[in-house]
């Protein structure tokens, strides 16, 4: 079944593909000036990362003196163990992961269902207005409604990671609905009609036919939801009342308070906080980039 749909999916990436296929045919003379300029520019990304790695392997004395750019020898891997226990890394990591997973799942399920209902009932005023209602939130940033939200979440016992995940889903909803609605328009109606003739209910049509077809958009929505949720500092730090339930980015602030001379341990901790997404990104680079590019084109 999914093979039949491929044209719709492929059409979204055609320009890219066409270009890529064209390249080998042309005489490929690399532009070395541009290449060298870009390599130099890439140092602005690489040097801070190198610096973080170098710092995390120093002794406290080495880290407190000099520019911090020299490579330490011998390397102090013990810093990571110390940072691990200081921040209670496994707990913060699991809480971050839980929030992110719930956010991703929630954003995908809630907005794909809503978008499908809206797209198939566009002729009805209620659904059309719902679309604009959900989209209007793009102009409501978190700080605008933060104060009442903090009070409300506390009042209904959601001043915890679950509440944070719920808010992450809500702030992701506008963008996700926008992406899904654009994509749903490209899915031909005949497919659904034929499934209905075979006796499928709307519920089955959605989960067995539409949802699998939405796979590329699910990936895009999921990547955006994950990055926004995993890296967020503002909402968990303001919503979660219990400091033992804080996420990985938030727990890094302990180094701003009591341990501010131990830069080496702090940087070991920063590195561990950055590592998960960087590693996933490096291994899934092609997939992640095609996902976010799809978001950009829509």
């Amino acid at each position: 079944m999914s093979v039949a749909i491929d044209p719709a999916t492929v059409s979204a990436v055609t320009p890219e593909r066409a270009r890529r296929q064209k390249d080998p045919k042309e005489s490929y003379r690399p532009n070395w000036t541009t290449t060298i300029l870009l390599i130099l520019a890439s140092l602005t990304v690489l040097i801070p990362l190198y610096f973080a790695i170098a710092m995390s392997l120093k002794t406290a004395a080495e880290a407190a003196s000099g520019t911090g750019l020299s490579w330490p020898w011998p390397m102090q891997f013990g810093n990571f163990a110390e940072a691990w226990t200081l921040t209670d890394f496994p707990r913060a990591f699991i809480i971050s992961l839980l929030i992110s997973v719930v956010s991703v799942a929630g954003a995908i399920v809630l907005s794909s269902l809503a978008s499908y209902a809206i797209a198939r009932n566009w002729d009805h005023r209620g659904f059309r207005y719902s679309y604009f209602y959900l989209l209007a939130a793009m102009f409501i940033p978190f700080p605008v409604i933060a104060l009442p939200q903090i009070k409300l979440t506390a009042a209904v016992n959601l001043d915890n990671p679950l509440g944070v995940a719920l808010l992450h889903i809500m702030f992701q909803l506008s963008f996700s609905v926008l992406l899904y609605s654009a994509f749903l328009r490209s899915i031909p109606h005949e497919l659904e009609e034929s499934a209905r003739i075979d006796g499928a209910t709307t519920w089955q049509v959605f989960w067995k036919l539409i949802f699998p077809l939405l796979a590329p958009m699910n990936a895009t929505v999921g990547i955006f939801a994950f990055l926004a949720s995993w890296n967020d500092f503002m909402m968990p730090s303001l919503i979660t009342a219990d400091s033992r339930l804080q996420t990985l980015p938030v727990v890094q602030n302990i180094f701003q308070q009591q341990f501010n001379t131990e830069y080496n341990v702090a940087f070991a901790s920063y590195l561990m906080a950055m590592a998960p997404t960087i590693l996933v990104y490096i291994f899934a680079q092609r997939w992640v980039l095609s996902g976010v590019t799809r978001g950009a084109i829509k």
Partner: protein
Amino acid sequence: MTATASRGTQRRAPSADTPARAGRTGKPRVEPIFYAFLFPAIALFSLAITLPALIGMFYSVTDYVGFGEYDFIGFGNYAALFTDPRILSSYGFTMGFSLVTVIAVNAIALALAIGLNSKIKFKTALRGIFFIPMVISGIVIAYVFNYLFSNTLPTLTGTGSILVDPNLAWLSIVIVTAWQSIPSAIIIYLAGLLAIPEEVYEAGSLDGATGWRQFTSITLPLVAGYVVINTVLGFKGFLNAYEIIIGLTNGGPGTATFSVAMTIFTGFTSGDYAYQMANAVIFFIVTVVVSILQLQLIRRRGVSL
């Protein structure tokens, strides 16, 4: 039947996007299950976003301090906002910072996108590197840059740290915010550049358009729409600057880098809850107005480019 159909078409005509019309016209009734599909999103959204927004607007016309009783004071909070130097300076800083950052991000991202889109060596690796900042948490990278600005740079250059210089501290926030925001802007520009057909450049080069001329006469006009997207999205995000400031200067030195978002959050601890809610309402209006202004100004310019 014909009359109904044509009226329906007319009614729908203004909205450009009319998905899923074919095959549906003969079926005016909505299948109940679609309400069930839509309901969870609308209900949760109303509770989590709309309700707090309404509560906030309500408190903004009271003298509520966050607990206890309160009275209605009309627009007193709003009037006070416009003469409060702390509020005005936070808006001044936030707008200025956002403006500089959005220009820097767009200029650098467009340059990098053009570079990454040209015939270069190590294309995949370079793209991979430039997108790394996108996956890193803002607060963590701000902590890393904090040390670079306060220790490494002063040691290398023999000058003081820009983080404690009231005139330069904002620059550190621009740098780190740009560092983190450039990748997503590059992605949007790459999408725009890929949409320009090769033939346009070939035709242009026959007429002698190369290098800078090619950029101003072909590339720039054709990615103008993407400049709009990046400007609106970027500016909207930068107005909410929070965690990078927390990680770098924490609003200091003094209140030199205190953003609007940070000021609003003080409403929770400083007892002026209602006052900061009025600030939040103004901030929302500013966000919307700025976005609309940008869309219109840049659209108009985009045509004549």
